[in-house]
């Protein structure tokens, strides 16, 4: 008579010469509750790690790549690096409306027709960044005291930021980025669980 053990600790009898398999009473006492719950947790952790890892691979890969590109946006030329010292006191700066007009005049008529998205005033550098709502997110850097245009160019990092957050596909798509972040957190926890818990049990 040949013997082999089954997964749950039951003994399985396989009589020689016959193909029949019959289960007999467990040879070992049932595992204590703590060990059983630990096994269940390990199983849940394994499947959570597997499913979330596979389902969020592409989303996390995209978020990671855009994150790296955004970290190095200056070096990659995605945003302008304008070196400028203030030409006067901040109190003597031109009004925002005048600076906006100067920026409009520095762009093409098609861009000037679009709305201004934001005006980022930098008193320490003595300039204001005027960003338009065109597809390229064109930005004009204007000296706040003299009104001189220092730089005109697209902001490549705006689209990458929107892709990073998921907003590039629509306003509600930030939920995708949220889901990926939650998945990553669960992946970290389950990964550590699967790695360390078996070592502690030994």
């Amino acid at each position, binding site marked *: 008579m040949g013997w082999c053990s089954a997964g749950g600790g039951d003994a399985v009898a396989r009589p020689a010469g016959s193909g029949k398999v019959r289960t007999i009473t467990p040879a070992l006492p049932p595992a204590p509750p703590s060990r059983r719950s630990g096994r269940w947790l390990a199983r849940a952790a394994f499947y959570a790690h*597997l*499913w979330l890892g*596979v*389902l969020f*691979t*592409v*989303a996390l*890969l*995209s978020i990671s*790549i*855009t994150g790296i*590109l955004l970290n190095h946006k200056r070096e990659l030329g995605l945003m302008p690096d304008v070196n400028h010292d203030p030409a006067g006191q901040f109190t003597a700066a031109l009004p925002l409306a005048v600076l906006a007009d100067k920026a409009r005049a520095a762009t093409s008529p098609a861009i000037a027709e679009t709305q201004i998205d934001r005006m980022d005033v930098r008193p320490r550098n003595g300039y204001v960044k005027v960003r338009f709502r065109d*597809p*390229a997110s064109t930005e004009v850097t204007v000296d706040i005291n003299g009104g001189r245009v220092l730089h005109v160019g*697209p902001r*490549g990092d705006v*689209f*990458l930021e929107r*892709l990073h957050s998921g907003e*590039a*596909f*629509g*306003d509600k798509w930030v939920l995708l980025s949220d889901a990926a972040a939650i998945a990553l957190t669960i992946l970290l926890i389950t990964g550590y669980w699967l790695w360390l818990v078996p070592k502690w049990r030994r």
Partner: protein
Amino acid sequence: MEGSPLSAGQFALLAGLFGAPMLLLWAGHHLRRKSRRVRGAFWGGLAGHTIASLIAIWYSMVPPEAWSASDTVRGVGGFYWMMVGAIIGAAIGILKSRNQKPAS
């Protein structure tokens, strides 16, 4: 965009992003016990989806100022390709598994 239903491109993107990997996981569970056709579909689909995902990520990084009104390649690459790549890969895998001789 606010409150608008999912467009066909967005639906294809979600199907490629989550639907295809979910089906691959289902097909890959106890793979050795599955039929030759399912195994072929799994490996073909996995290869197709992996290649398509890299293409989709590449196209998604193209900045908007580089887009043109007649730019269908970018739309197909970014939105549809992950789903289509997995389907094409799975179909090739099934066809290849049919032509293979059974293991002796």
